[in-house]
């Protein structure tokens, strides 16, 4: 429950950012740089005089929104491809599984980094890159689910009634695998937040002046002696976001596997 509340608060903050942020996150006021938290700037200002709280809220939009889009995209692609592999078997299965295994061998951050460096990065492209890096995990789960479900009676019945593979997959098999896929998707949101922040921290995220939690941490490093607070808030935001998503995901998993449980 606590996890859900925290998550809701963070999401609300991000969505309502344009209305509740006290300042414009990208407008610089160099004369007001590196001010500690005060009544005027609740979380202080950064090295260009930008209000940290406003940047944090807007960065949340980027990080959370992106993560959600990535999760949805990955689950979509992964479920379809993995499910198809499980259902069709034979060559399509081998081909898709080979692709999945290959992608799983590459550290996702490394692949995302190299891809980001080779293209002109914007929000859409970054989402695509991260989704492409994340779908294999989902595909594996989907495939396993479909494999265990496809011998069920209702599937046989549907097949006898003349349903083709796409219909089987979309109408009968995948809907019954919603639980594990939903859990996977939720956890994927957490991973996506972490990967995107890491990418921004390393310098391969969205170009300035777009704020992102990882990017803010990257900038904060240069000023640690003068403005240590700059390094604390972005990381805290990431941790809270990821933790609350993880807790919610755990609760979902507990519900899905039928154990009930009052966590989160």
């Amino acid at each position, binding site marked *: 429950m606590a996890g859900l509340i925290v998550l809701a608060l963070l999401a609300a903050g991000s969505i309502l950012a344009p209305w509740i942020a006290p300042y414009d996150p990208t407008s610089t006021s160099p004369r007001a740089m590196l001010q500690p938290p005060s009544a005027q700037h609740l979380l202080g200002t950064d090295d260009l005089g930008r209000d940290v709280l406003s940047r944090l809220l807007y960065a949340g939009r980027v990080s959370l929104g992106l993560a959600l889009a990535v999760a949805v995209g990955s689950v979509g692609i992964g479920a379809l491809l993995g499910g198809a592999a499980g259902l069709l078997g034979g060559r399509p299965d081998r081909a898709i599984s080979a692709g999945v295994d290959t992608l799983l061998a*590459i550290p996702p951050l490394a692949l995302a*980094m190299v891809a980001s460096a080779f293209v002109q990065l914007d929000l859409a492209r970054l989402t695509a890159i991260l989704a492409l890096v994340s779908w294999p995990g989902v595909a594996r789960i989907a495939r396993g689910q479909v494999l265990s479900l496809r011998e069920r009676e209702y599937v046989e019945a549907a097949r006898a009634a003349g349903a083709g593979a796409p219909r089987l997959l979309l109408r009968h098999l995948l809907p019954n695998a919603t639980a594990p896929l939903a859990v996977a998707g939720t956890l994927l949101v957490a991973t996506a937040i972490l990967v995107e922040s890491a990418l921004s921290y390393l310098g391969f995220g969205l170009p300035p002046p777009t704020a992102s939690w990882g990017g803010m941490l990257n900038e904060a490093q240069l000023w640690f002696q003068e403005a240590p607070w700059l390094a604390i808030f972005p990381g805290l935001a990431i941790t809270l976001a990821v933790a609350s998503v993880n807790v919610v995901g*755990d609760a979902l998993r507990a519900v899905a596997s039928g154990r009930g449980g009052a966590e989160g």
Partner: protein
Amino acid sequence: MLSYAARRTLGAVPRVLLVSVLLFLLLQLPAGGPADVFAADPTASPEAIQRIEELWGLNRPVHEQYLAWLGNMVQGDWGFSFSQRRPARAVVMERLGNTLWLTGGALLVGLVFGVGLGVATAATRRRAPKAALQLLSVVGMSVPTFWSGTLVLLYFGVHLGWIPSGGMGTIGEAFSLPDLLRHLAAPAIVLGSVYVAQWSRFVHAGLEETMREDYVRTARAKGRHRWALLMRHAFPNTAITLLTVLGLELPRLVAGAMVTEVVFAWPGLGRLLTESLLGRDYPVVMAALMLLVLLVIVANVATDLAYGLLDPRVRYG
């Protein structure tokens, strides 16, 4: 066992080939394709550019280019670093050992403390430690390592001066094991903390579950000690599953090492990848990426082999 090992090792070869295809396709992303990537060195003399074009067959059709590239890689020619003016393979190889130290250290920390905490909380019957573990592990898994690492480095290293402020050894001093370990401690702990969080939880849950099994409860009723039951029955099963989890986590561990290396200025492969990407030294980028992937695949094979050793059932599957 031997045939199992052989099958597993040979089975890795197609994966490596597929990865090489993927990496080669990645090279096609920049506007000029591999030409952009390998020949775009503005400091190159006309002779160097010509050499590159001959070597990589940049004027031939794509599949021929791939075979030429693959042939070169296999023979050990991984390109020439633009910024360091020497073969990319040399650049990459000298960093490999450093990354192994870091990932090894983190694994050790993760296993020792992760398993230790998991076992300890499973062995007790009191609620408080278990709740504490749950909380700590959620937090531990959610804290981004670049944040915890930066704070640890800046506070304990820069502010207090208790730990070295980065790097793998004291500058200019000859190599010494204590010096290395002193520099390794903080990054290994930071990187390993994520796994302590994950595995302590996993081990605890696995042990608890086995302890609930009928045969264990019977033995308990008969008066056997919790601890003895834990170690004799619960632990071996959990250990094997832990191994599987470990195998799945390897790519993530390597990726995590990358970030930790940057934070602590550890001269490893991950940091090399970041630097060479920023410096547009593409031959080194591809070489580093290839080596990282090979590392993961080798580790996977090793895990499979270990799994085979521990669980005889697998070998005949």
